[in-house]
């Protein structure tokens, strides 16, 4: 006979605690001291700007930052944006840029992590070299690649001509159809090492015993990867892809330095476009409205981001 673990079990859930949030806050008052500096900095540099941006998006603003002269115009800025052709062009570019960069960065990074997982001579050196593009400044990367893509003296053009694949050096970044893919290649160059590091870290946590068990069960290398390694990396992959997507969606330096959004907006993405509206054409109101729209989109992405991270946190909590 199994023992009923005492009537006490049921009893301990009966009385709900009515101590109140305030009392709890008071009891934990010392704990807040630890987070206070972080929160204070965040509030100044985040909460205030967000509030300000939302406010400004409903105003028509004169050029220059003499914002006292702004006039309230309701949703006009938003209608202006949503009815303009540039908006849809830039949005499409942003989608291509974000998805293309994220997908290839992740695939190449994951592939490199897998290939580097087994120990071999020179692995450490190879790994270090592959990480370097991620460490160096995006400004430096932009200039390096701008020189590589150069329409007259670029090395890629010279190689293509030398191999007889082209009559004259192709113009990669001064051409509406090739500029975005060319910039994506640069972005991937800088981003894949991040995916690689994350996935390498993830691979280390795949339990050897499971892989051995699968081997004993007669699984092939591919089957072991597909049934053991890959499912185990689900959480790391989600976090990595989200972090990449957010970073790519928010990237600015590469298109800004390499093309400034040109030619004819072919490489403008949201962020560069907003920057140009605000600081180039001084249309602060429209730029703010753009920012608010961007903000809303990011909230959707952010929902998944927090859920992925929260899932991570919860699992660790129960472990």
């Amino acid at each position, binding site marked *: *006979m199994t*023992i*009923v*673990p*005492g*009537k*006490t*079990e049921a*009893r*301990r*859930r009966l*009385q*709900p*605690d009515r101590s109140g949030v305030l009392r709890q806050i008071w*009891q934990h008052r010392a704990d807040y001291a630890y987070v206070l500096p972080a929160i204070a900095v965040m509030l100044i540099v985040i909460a205030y700007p967000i509030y300000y941006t939302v406010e400004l998006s409903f105003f028509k603003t004169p050029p220059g930052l003499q914002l006292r002269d702004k006039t309230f115009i309701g949703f006009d800025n938003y209608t202006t944006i949503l009815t303009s052709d540039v908006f849809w062009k830039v949005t499409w570019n942003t989608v291509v840029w974000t998805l293309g960069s994220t997908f290839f960065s992740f695939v190449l990074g994951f592939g490199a992590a897998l290939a580097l997982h087994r120990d071999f001579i020179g692995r450490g050196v190879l790994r270090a070299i592959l990480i370097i593009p991620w460490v160096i400044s995006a400004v430096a990367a932009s200039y390096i690649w701008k020189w590589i893509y150069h329409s007259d003296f670029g090395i890629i053009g010279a190689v293509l001509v030398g191999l007889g694949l082209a009559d004259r050096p192709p113009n990669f970044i001064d051409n509406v159809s090739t500029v975005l893919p060319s910039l994506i290649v640069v972005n991937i160059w800088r981003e894949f090492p991040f995916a690689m590091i994350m996935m390498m870290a993830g691979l280390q946590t795949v339990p050897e015993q499971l892989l051995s068990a699968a081997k004993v069960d007669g699984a092939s290398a591919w089957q072991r990867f597909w049934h053991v390694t890959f499912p185990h990396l689900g959480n790391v992959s989600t976090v990595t892809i989200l972090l990449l997507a957010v970073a790519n969606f928010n990237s600015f330096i590469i298109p800004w330095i390499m093309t400034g959004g040109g030619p004819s907006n072919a490489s403008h993405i949201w962020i560069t476009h907003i920057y140009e509206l605000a600081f180039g054409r001084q249309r602060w109101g429209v730029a703010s409205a753009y920012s608010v729209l961007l903000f809303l989109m990011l909230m959707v992405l952010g929902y998944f981001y927090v859920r992925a991270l929260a899932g991570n946190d919860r699992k660790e909590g129960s472990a």
Partner: protein
Amino acid sequence: MAHVVLKDLVKTYGSFKAVNDVSLTVNDGEFVALVGPSGCGKTTTLNLVAGLIPITSGEIVIGDRVVNDLDPKDRDIAMVFQNYALYPQKSVYKNLAFPLQMRKLPREAIDKKVRDAARVLDMTELLERKPRELSGGQQQRVALGRALVRDPAVFLMDEPLSNLDAKLRVQMRSEIKRFHQDLKATIIYVTHDQLEAVTMADRMAVMNGGYLQQYDSPAQVFAHPVNMFVASFVGSPAMSLVPLQASTANGNTVLTGAEGWQFELSPHNAQKVASAKTKKVVLGARHSTIKLHKSAVPASVPAKAYTVEPTGDVTFVQALLSGAIVNISVSPNVAVAPDEQIWLEFDQERMHLFDGETEMALKVN
């Protein structure tokens, strides 16, 4: 050394009550074990005594001071943790010296005390090692040493042996017991292993679901469990508990099993059953108080052998009776086969009877 008093101790987490109105007194120099299954509140109780978590209500007295609002460092206690909690970056010497440094003792005094403790625990040659270079048993000993150097009022121990292998555990068990006898130390010892509590403690406090179930000497707890939980938790193999139906006919009280068999209770046991409010009675019997017969004898009940486990000295037979499993120990030369028909005879003097509703032990009014 000092005594410890817990008075109506309560700890809640939100609406969850981890510790419910626990009151108990630990006398000066006494070894008390807090024992219970995981999640019963024993470790929480110990942490409350240590001051590592704040109490919700109640009172804790150590020595003659109420320590409710004192920091752990001011309670004059030492604690040994399940995972030893040795500072990994410090050598054994520095681990032992740390509590003394925190109390701002002069360097020579620290050195003397550390070396004394190391000698007592026979680990002088380990002093310069780092914790990760030690075996589990050695780490355990360092943890004990770190508690020892302080000469505290009370020792708190949180499952200190559960990370050791079985052989080492038995050895360390007697070492801790020896340690208690030599120092006349007040010790509160948390464990989920009732055997540790029974073998080491002067008194044991059995906890379940945040409530203190019974607080008495191991012999008393073993002989007179207050309820079914304590009865089944203390002792190995566990006490067998058989749910039966009580009825009275012609002035005799009989218990009826699910299979329809009956047996008559002694007048003393009949009085106990009469005090119960219900007809559902649970019979409790330890393995050594049940006789196994290969054929029907008077006052025996029929059962079916289920598994047979020879251990060398004795053979344990599990039998099916009235829907419950009953443990019986027999001499190894008694041959019983699984599924064999057997007859069981209960010792009326040493059997326990519980109320099937409240699960409390039945007593003569």
